[in-house]
């Protein structure tokens, strides 16, 4: 139940992010909320840079749809790369490579 409470706090934090009028403020709140959600923050800096770039793209484009579509495409590529990495790991562990 302790973890469910943390998830509810994450949802409340997202409400704060959406309510922020400034994109920079939303970015800072989002970074803080997600950092608070984690116990192991190894590599969190890389993730923070990634979402900062995404917020920059949203601000530069002046629209919502195109950055979200571009992000969906990038996430699809990332998912394919993740699947490939998982396949290689399973093959190595199974003695196939």
């Amino acid at each position: 139940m302790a973890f469910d409470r943390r998830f509810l706090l994450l949802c409340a934090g997202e409400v704060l992010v959406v309510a922020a009028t400034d994109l920079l403020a939303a970015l800072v709140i989002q970074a803080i909320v997600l950092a608070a959600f984690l116990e192991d923050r190894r590599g969190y800096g890389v993730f923070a840079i990634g979402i900062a770039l995404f917020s920059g793209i949203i601000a530069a484009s002046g629209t919502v749809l195109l950055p979200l579509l571009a992000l969906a495409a990038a996430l699809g590529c990332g998912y394919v790369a993740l699947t490939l990495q998982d396949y290689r790991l399973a093959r190595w562990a199974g003695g196939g490579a």
Partner: protein
Amino acid sequence: MIRPTRTASGIAALALALTVVALPIANPAAALAAGSLAVFLLWRGWRFERDLSAVAASLAVDRDVDRTILRQGTAATVRVRVDCTVPPGMEIRARDLPPAVAVGDAPLSLPGETATYIVRLMAPGETAFAGVALEAKDVFFSRNLVCRRLNAPHLRVLPAGINGNGRGTGTTGGDTEVNRGAALPGQSVRGFRPYLTGDNPRQVDWKVTARRGALYVRQLAGLEGGAPLIAVDLPARAGDPETFARFSMAVSGAVEGAIASRDGCSLLVVAGGEIVRFLPRTQDIREVLSALGGLAPLEPRASLYRAPGPAVLAVRARMPRHGTGPEAVYRERLGGILAAFAKESPAPFAAAVRTALGRAGAREIRVYSLLPAGDTSHLIQLVHEAKVRGMQVVLKAPAGAGAIPGVDAVEVL
């Protein structure tokens, strides 16, 4: 593939809900929240995979079996300890995977703990452990990974003894008939014949006697002297694995019994018109078992195309020619043609079998075959070559599988 936990599913649902909110009202902050949550999940998945790779790379298994050479069906105690580097935030549990032919499951254990369990190896031959299964989990993802590289030590399983009826000697819970009429350990029943005055009353088989209504005695294998020749006919295709395992066990048991009770035996393994292995007059149980260790269904490289072989042709050529007129002429010509074929036919398989039978010097041949549908001409040639040498031929085949002409006795496998 990695599986999302309930938390990861909740975050994905939250990202989807924020996307649905962001698109109609064109809210950049909601779009940022949705996108960053999606990126967050991908980043955590990548993090999980890297941690799992580190765990797999650092995995070490210390497995100890109380004996590595054991008899089929006996229990062996396995102690296993799995060590690995566990990254922060990740939970690892390990389960040892026993050999594929073993009965028994290992418990889940944490890294650094020693788990103890018991396995029974149910098939003879060389075998090894199947590896270690890891169950990795963090807050967002979980994954089961099987590491098959860590399979030491290798185990050697000797076959359990086989009685004349083809069943084991106590490895199963069912009733097993014991051949108490055998004069020596390892002797098996070759067949039955009517009782004659002077026969040992202890050799009377009361079941057959009751079934036939007359006294019948058991004829034991090995009373005629000479090491037997055990011929194994490998099927061309893999059928029912359980049937083939039973077949393999029966062959191993017969070889072990023959070596234990006599002056050794000879082993001939054929696959279609091809001799796969031949061991003449051996007493080395290890040599025979290693020859039998890798037996598997084998597609023959050459077919005999249902050729009966020179021995059968010679017999047909010598058939008596009765009658007069055109039929007698026809039979005379046919006999001449068959005799010519029998003389000129190279028949390399029959020649190789003849040589093997000569080297074996056996007076009895036991043919083990599953008798699959199709060409059995190699068995016909084998049996006829044996009959030409005056050998006793016993066919061991599954019930209802048919028979080979010229066989003296058929026993159910």
